[in-house]
Each structure stands twice: as C-alpha cells, then as structure tokens.
C-alpha cells in the first residue's frame, strides 16, 4: 500500500544525491586549488619575473599580460556590445533583419573558442597585419565576448521602465534624446555588470589567444599593443603540460591556477557588488 511513498522517498533521495555530488565536485575543485596553491602565494610570486627556465620566480608578467589583454577586450566588446543592444532594444522592429541579428548572437555565443582563434589568426594577425600581439589577442577575445555583452546589455535596457521613454517623448524629446538622457543613465550600471562577467570569462580563456599573441616565456612586460605577452591561463597550460620538468614546477602551476581563479572571482564579485550598489542607489 505504501509502495507509492517508498518510491517517492527513494526518488527524492536520488535527487538529493545528485545535488550532493554536484556540491562535492564544486567544493573539491575549489578546495584542491586553494589548499595546494595558497602556500605558493607570496609577494615575490605575484610581483617578480620567472627565473631559471621558469622553475623559480614569479608570474608577474603573466598577471600584467592578462590584465592588458582583458583591457583591450573590453575596449572592443563594451562599445560594440552596448551599441548592438541599444539597437535591438530601442530601435529594432520585429522584422527579418532583427531576427537574423538575434539568431547570429545566439550562434556566436556557441562558436567554439578555438574557432575564434582561427578567425583571429586570419583576420587580425594576417589580413590586418597586426601580427601576433596583445591587440590581435584582445580583439579576438573581444569578438568572443561580444554576444555575452549584447545579451547582458539588452537585459539591462529591458529593465528600464517604458514610462521613462514615453514620458521623455511626450515632453518633446527626440528618440535619441530620450535614450541618452532618460534610458542609458539607468541602464549603464546593469550593462557594465553583465559586461564585467563576460570579461571575467574572457580573462580565463586560452584557446583564442594561443595563436594570436600569447608567448611561452618573455623576460619582460609587454611594451606596446604590438608586443607579444604572457597570460595566466596559458602560463598554467604551459606549466602543467609543456614544461621540461613538470613535477618540479607543479607548485607554480597550482599557484598560477589559484591566482587565475581568484582573479576571475574578484571580477565576478566586483560585478555583483556593482549591481547591488546600483540597486540601492536607484531606490534613494
């Protein structure tokens, strides 16, 4: 008679188990990296150059390189992403071109990162003669980030009540005036939040920069947009697979992994705090 309930309990137990496994996986990942990486984190590790064939020393050029290339990514992805979102949310009618744009965005976000790398090699490195450089890598990552920034920015624009637009138009504002003075100021925070989340993902990407500018080892910092650069994710890749004495440099790999994960988290956290503060500000 109670078989119905026994089944239900078993079933729910199974669901709980699934959730528990996922939780354990996430915890294990974070714990492993944090516990084995934290011992490596010193001022010297963060702020000095690699030494002795990268078996000693720090990861300073990789940190700087990642920050540098992410800044260029932002430079490309933020304006283009916001512009596209403004078009879609404020100007576009529901016609075939709009649907085509939306379809393209969804598909671009599914294009494998290595394919963006190929595209970057042909377009930026070769056709545009930018060479293997920070700028080629930054642009490649920028294109990859674009669909995420568009989606996030559009979401932020959607959250601005229509009455702000209508109110402005009814007072004789032109469409652009209404957008510029009465929509964007309230959306820009949300747009930035979403964009930072996208940039955090770009900062951790390796495949798109593999052939567009990242370097194995450079004993100096990138000097200009056309220099090659070191980057944290690639450094981790090298340290864990390509180095001549892999076991010796394992602590460095763990330290690099921890720094990379922390960097991505800090960017995420920054975005979340920004969102929270903007919300509070709006209520005032």
């Amino acid at each position, binding site marked *: 008679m109670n078989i119905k309930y026994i089944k239900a309990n078993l079933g729910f137990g199974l669901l709980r188990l699934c959730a528990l496994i996922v939780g354990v996986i996430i915890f294990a990942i974070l714990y492993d990296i944090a516990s084995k990486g934290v011992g490596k984190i010193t001022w010297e590790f963060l702020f000095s150059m690699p030494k002795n064939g990268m078996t000693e020393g720090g990861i300073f050029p990789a940190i700087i390189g990642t920050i540098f290339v992410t800044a260029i990514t932002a430079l490309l992805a933020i304006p283009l992403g916001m512009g596209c979102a403004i078009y879609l949310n404020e100007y576009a009618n529901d016609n075939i071109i709009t649907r085509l744009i939306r379809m393209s965005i969804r598909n671009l976000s599914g294009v494998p990162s290595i394919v963006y790398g190929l595209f970057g090699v042909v377009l930026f490195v070769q056709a545009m003669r930018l060479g293997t450089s920070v700028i080629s890598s930054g642009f490649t990552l920028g294109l990859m980030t674009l669909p995420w920034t568009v989606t996030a920015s559009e979401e932020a624009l959607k959250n601005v009540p229509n009455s*702000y637009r209508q109110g*402005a138009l009814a007072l004789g504002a032109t469409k652009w005036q209404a957008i510029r*003075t009465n929509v964007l100021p309230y959306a820009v925070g949300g747009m930035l939040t979403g964009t930072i989340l996208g940039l955090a993902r770009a900062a951790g990407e390796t495949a798109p920069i593999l052939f567009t500018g990242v370097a194995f080892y450079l004993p100096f910092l990138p000097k200009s947009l056309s220099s090659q650069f070191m980057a944290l994710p690639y450094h981790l890749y090298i340290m864990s697979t390509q180095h001549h004495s892999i076991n010796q440099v394992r602590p460095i790999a763990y330290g690099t992994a921890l720094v990379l994960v922390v960097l991505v988290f800090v960017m995420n956290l920054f975005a979340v705090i920004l969102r929270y503060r903007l919300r509070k500000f709006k*209520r005032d």
Partner: protein
Amino acid sequence: MRDSLVKSDLVKIKVENLNFYYTGVKVLKNITIEIKKNLVTGIIGPSGCGKSTFLRTLNRMNDVVLGAKAEGKILIDGKNIYALDVDVVAIRRKVGMVFQKSNPFPKSIFDNVAYGLRINGIKDKNYITQKIEKSLQDAALWKEVKDRLNKSAFDLSGGQQQRLCIARALAVEPQVLLMDEPASALDPTATAKIEELIQRLKEKYTIVIVTHNMQQAARISDHTAFFMQGVIIEHGLTKKIFTKPVNKITEDYITGRFG
C-alpha cells in the same frame, strides 16, 4: 462665466475621418470631432473602446507602438499633424501629456521639471529656475515642495507625483494638455486637488481628458465625447450628454446599465 466659456467657438483641434489600426486591426473608426480652445473635453466610454488610443493620436504617441497606422487628418490650429513633412517632436512639445500612472523620472523634483527644458536646449539657469517655480505653482505643488527641490521625486505621495508630472508637462509651454485618466490611481482628496487644478489650467490650455469615472467627467468637462468600440456615439455639451442624451446607448452607459 462658465456658460460664456462653453460657448467659445475657437476650434483648437479638428479631427477628420480618423481611422486607426494596430497591426491591421481597426481600433478607431471614422472619428470626426472638433475640440474647442480653452475648454475641457472629456472622453468617456467602456474599457477597450479606444479612448486612450484616440488621446494618443493627438500627440502621435502611438507612433512608438509597433504596427500602428493612422488614416485621416488631425488638424491642430489648421495644420495636419499626420502630414508627411511634420516634425513629430515639435508636435509633442505643443501637445503635452499626462499619463494614467504618474511617471516621474528617477531624478530630483527640480530635474524632473527641468528635463523638458533641457532637452529643448535651454541652458540659462535663471530662466530654468524661474520656469520651474512657475510650473510648480501652476500645478499647485510649489508650496509643498519648494524646500526640497533636490529630493528625489519618488519621495512624493501619489497625488504629488501626478501634479509633478503636470508641472513637468507645463514647463515646456504646451498649448494642449492631454490627460489619460490622471486620477485613476489616486485617493479622493488627491483626485479633488487634480480636478481643481484642471479647472484652473483651462484658462491657459486646451485640455482633453480621458476618464472612466462618469461623475468626474460630469464635474470637470465642458464637452464630453462618448466612445464605444472605436466609434464616437455621441459628442456635445457635457450638460446635455448627461441630462438629455440623444442616443439610447449613451443613456444606458451613463445610467450605469453597462460598463
């Protein structure tokens, strides 16, 4: 005095054979009506009858809606606002609008009223300050807010917010004021204040007001138009519509037999 105004013959807005479509569906059918200057014209009718849509054709706010299309003419001071060479923005400056739900912007009280001036390119600070005081006075809000102009507009009560929106509309010096159920979300005291205000505003402005509240229409409007299913059933002096309606449907509606 009221009778003399009612007899005013100056036509401010003339609507001729207006048809209006939303994505192919005809929502206004062959509307022809004259709206007199410095009078309050009330628009009444059951919900979905097209009264708000009609109001929004008068400043072309419907242009914003996808799939909207107008046929026919609306002449304001003799000029067709649906003519091809018309600047929509200029029309909206001339024809102000107050919405059903008060929609102050998330700015200070001062900046709300200044918004319309600033987007019209006015930068003279003295002028803006004076204009804001004047508009707030005209909207009967000045006394209540003069000490906190830099506070957020969201701190005001519902009725104050709506009067702020009226002040905001007045600041750009429109000639016509469209009001879409401006008191529907307000309590009786706040409603009374808005109605009083409307009576004073008509000395300077031509007012068209949509309302679902029959008593309100009877109280504040000089002319009343009764809309149903996108058609004007009856239009004339308010007194006449409410006491001796010509049309049986009008009578049924006014006496509350449907609604």
